[in-house]
């Protein structure tokens, strides 16, 4: 496999693939960590803040990615609140760094992680948790051993969507990435660069590899999710 792709793909292309996978994995893990409590709160809370928070979470869906990316660029810059914070902490600027891309990806895919989880939590309803409570479970125990397993399909969906969405992420990366090989040069911008540079052969090859690989991963994840469901009583 590496022999075949090694002749068709340049070192830069391979580095872009590796970086894309790293970004997608890191984004998915971070997103699930953030989305779980957020989705839980949105599903269960009676607070009047529910509606505005829900709208805010869904906002990245509505904004064009390049617009989102542009405002992230401004926010991360020395004039923006985030940029001023990171500079004050001695971390420099987030733009053109992997961390910056990670943050951008998390914002970009947030609704894709929160929504399925929220739906799954809402679908399992209050009954199982009430029963757990009457049996003496603490809120954390109830969450861990009752709510979470029931929401597993939602978790799989959230993970799959976040992963896939990040692999295909383009607009945000284009705006805040700076296309630095090994750090912010991902497959989508690499393909775009090949097209713009009129190197269509490289573009086709890289796109085909991305397509096949992504399809394979998503198929695998979908099958994994289904098998888990059959195991549940």
């Amino acid at each position: 496999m590496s022999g075949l792709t090694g002749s068709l793909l340049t070192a830069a292309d391979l580095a872009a693939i590796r970086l894309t996978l790293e970004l997608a994995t890191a984004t998915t893990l971070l997103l699930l960590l953030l989305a779980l409590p957020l989705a839980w709160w949105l599903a269960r809370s009676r607070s009047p803040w529910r509606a505005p928070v829900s709208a805010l979470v869904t906002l990245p869906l509505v904004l064009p990615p390049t617009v989102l990316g542009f405002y992230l660029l401004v926010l991360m810059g020395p004039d923006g609140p985030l940029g001023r914070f990171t500079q004050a902490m001695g971390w420099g600027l987030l733009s053109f760094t992997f961390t910056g891309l990670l943050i951008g990806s998390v914002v970009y895919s947030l609704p894709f992680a929160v929504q399925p989880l929220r739906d799954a939590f809402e679908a399992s309803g209050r009954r199982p948790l009430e029963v757990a409570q009457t049996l003496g479970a603490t809120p954390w125990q109830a969450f861990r051993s009752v709510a979470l397993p029931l929401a597993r399909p939602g978790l799989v969906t959230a993970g799959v969507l976040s992963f896939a969405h990040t692999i295909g992420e383009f607009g945000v990366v284009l705006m805040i990435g700076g296309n630095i090989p090994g750090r912010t040069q991902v497959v989508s911008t690499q393909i775009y660069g090949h097209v713009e540079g009129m190197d269509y052969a490289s573009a086709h090859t890289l796109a085909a590899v991305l397509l096949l690989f992504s399809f394979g991963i998503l198929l695998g994840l979908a099958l994994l999710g289904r098998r888990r469901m059959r195991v549940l009583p």
Partner: protein
Amino acid sequence: MRLPSMVLTLVATLLAGPCAAAEVAVAVAANFTAPMQRLVPLFEQQTGHKVLASYGSTGKLFSQISNGAPFEVLLAADDETPARLERSGGAVTGTRFTYAIGRLVLWSRQPGVVDGNGEVLRGDGFDRLAIADPRLAPYGAAAVQTLRSLGLFERLQPRLVMGESITQAHQFVATGNAPLGFVALSQVYADGRLTEGSAWVVPTQMHDLIRQQAVLLAKGRDNPAARALLDFLRSEPVRAVIRQSGYATD
């Protein structure tokens, strides 16, 4: 008797031919955005024709034109792309000419940062240097050539951040995300002066000349407005405006 005379008037107007105002769809290289936006109202006023301008990187515009985009005139950032289109039949032969010669400039949005010789490049006062992707933009290629001429390319390569177009390179510097960058002079120049910050205009011997050429595209072959636009760009008063915007002319 009123209807026949109305019909006659209508027919006469339709038969007026090329004197009627037409529309021209023009694809413009990103670096020429500001001057073009100044020139379009002048052209429309002078000729009565309407201009529909789309701005983008020359590479992207080439892809679109090659795949049937309805542009009738191309104002490229290089001379290679119009030549390619001529060879492939996408452009009308014999209509290619240099409308502007690009000037590369090292720019910072802070005044007093860039000196008149570009010596700031030799120091360590900056952690990022923005350029346009040299594969995609002539100004990016010129930036790399300049760094090589100065013998600074190896040293500064780790600090390079690449914009997908000269517009994006400028954006990186304008938002402060990169303290320095190589941009087109036209992006930071108006009415014969620098608009803000500090700059070093790179001497032309440090890089290949950036000949920006315009060409009539195949789709615009029979459009009088398209030919009128090309003639307009060659006229001396317009060339003066182009020079005032930070370019040289032949």
